[in-house]
């Protein structure tokens, strides 16, 4: 047996900082799992239709922004909390986390102005921000994204816009899955101190861009083969169901409270 095989290894890798790779991996994984999760959302005859949801959420955000009444803002906040409480626990957790993070950030930002005497903003704005963020998050966590894109078509958005939006969501997923292994590879190959990691990051992003160009060409060819003309048709008209009616009623009530309180 050669002598060097019997010698005990004394190699200890020099510690290196690579938290930026970890962070990039985590944020990419977060996006991917978020896109995956939304395709499992149930939909059908007995659920509220997406166009109503999009329109009402938009209405709610406008009312919140216009309102000067603390009571109205509180009512909406409570109603949104009640709606959140009906969802499964993991969704509740994510929705509340986003809402609280945004509200807390606003609160911190506004603290100095409160010391200058602006007592209106310090109470109203964080509550408004919490409600608006929660409303949008409830929409995006309880509706399949393709239904939201479909709803935009009902609001007469140009086809080219819907086309681009549709491709974007799909390819965020595809490109994300494509670039994740590159980040893993960079992490695995950086044993000990690797000073060239930073240069590799631009390589990964650059490769992502070149890959996206290739994907675009392939996709166009595939679409042409299937006879896509660039037009989207909405299949069938929406039939109102009980869920829709109840959902609309709640929002009409919110509108009435807003008109009463200002």
């Amino acid at each position: 047996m050669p002598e060097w095989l019997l010698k005990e290894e004394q190699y200890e890798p020099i510690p290196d900082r690579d938290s930026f790779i970890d962070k990039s991996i985590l944020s990419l994984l977060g996006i991917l799992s978020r896109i995956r999760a939304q395709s499992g959302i149930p939909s059908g005859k007995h659920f509220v239709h997406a166009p109503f949801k999009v329109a009402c959420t938009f209405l709610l955000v406008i009312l919140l922004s216009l309102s000067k009444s603390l009571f109205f803002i509180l009512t909406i906040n409570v109603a949104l909390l009640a709606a959140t409480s009906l969802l499964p626990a993991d969704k509740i957790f994510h929705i509340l986390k986003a809402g609280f993070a945004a509200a807390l950030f606003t609160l911190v930002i506004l603290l100095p102005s409160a010391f200058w005497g602006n007592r209106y903003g310090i109470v109203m704005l964080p509550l408004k921000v919490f409600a608006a963020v929660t409303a949008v998050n409830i929409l995006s966590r309880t509706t399949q994204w393709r239904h939201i894109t479909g709803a935009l078509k009902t609001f007469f958005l140009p086809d080219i816009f819907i086309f681009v939006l549709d491709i974007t969501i799909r390819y965020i997923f595809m490109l994300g899955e494509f670039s994740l292994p590159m980040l893993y590879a960079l992490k695995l190959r950086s044993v000990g101190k690797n000073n060239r990691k930073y240069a590799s990051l631009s390589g990964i992003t650059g490769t992502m861009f070149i890959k996206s160009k290739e994907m675009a060409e392939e996709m166009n060819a595939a679409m042409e083969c299937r006879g896509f003309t660039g037009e989207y048709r909405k299949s069938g008209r929406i039939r109102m169901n009980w869920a829709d009616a109840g959902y609309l009623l709640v929002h009409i009530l919110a509108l009435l409270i807003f008109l009463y309180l200002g």
Partner: protein
Amino acid sequence: MHIPDNYLSPATCAVMGAAMLPAWTVSINKLKKEVSRAKMPLLGIGASFSFLMMMFNVPLPGGTTGHAVGGTLLAILLGPYAACISVSVALLIQALFFGDGGLLSFGANCFNMAFVLPFVGYFLYKFIKDHTEGKKGEYIGIIIGSYAGLNAAALCTAIEFGIQPLLFKNAAGQALYCPYPLSVSIPAMMIPHLVVAGIVEALFTVAIFTFIKKVSPGTIYEGKKEKNKAVYGLLAALICLTPLGLLATGTAWGEWSAEEIQAVPASSGQPLGFIPEGMLNGINFEAAMPDYSIAGLPPYAGYILSAVAGVAILMIVFKIIQNVKSKNNKEIQ
């Protein structure tokens, strides 16, 4: 730089949205002329690229990380019109699906990040590249373009924040939306962008551009050479904006401190000569509630509201506890 809802007034949001309409229309028309139909999917894939680029964290001095926006890079790679549409779509997805940036403030966010950023960045890059010889000019153009583009966008954001307290106040004179005037919002936005974010953006842009140019030189957008008029227009606009920056250094009108207010000329032309009583006594936190329109509501409205809130919060707490418990049980098994 994503402005959430309720920081800007709905009126400002509407104005910014209206300002974006011509930008979107011109971009789409330009694209239809320049880009063949075969390249249309590239817009969507460019948008996903710009969305994902913001997920890449770059190490910053001091152990923290930050991310680049990449608006100028996208404009250099795909052309400014394609960048405008792609970034707009990426912003819409962030607002609608990820809750990042507001729905109402979508127009304002697009104006800053999908219009000002790529166009300022691209035309500065183009101007410098066309007026210098060799490779050096191109790289200097990229650095200056991406640095200036990001900072121009940050300046626009700061101005949008800063005009809120001037325009939108309640009866008591308190700001309804973002409370900070230009004298606060401009330095607060500009200092971090000038010192850190702009440099990160410039370095990232140059590094990726160099890589793509080396690996796949054919994929970079080649614009026409005569773009000078647009650059001069842009520079003129920026020069017009600089007084706003100057305004930020002095005390803005209406924001005097208690000492300064004595010297402010009153309507007769004489200095005011006294300090308003309310300012001397400082801030009264006691009087917070009367500002809100709670008065005039029947008392049971408050009870109902707190009852519903209580039930909702209890349900949320129970569900989360249950979820944690069932997870623990699974791990034990």
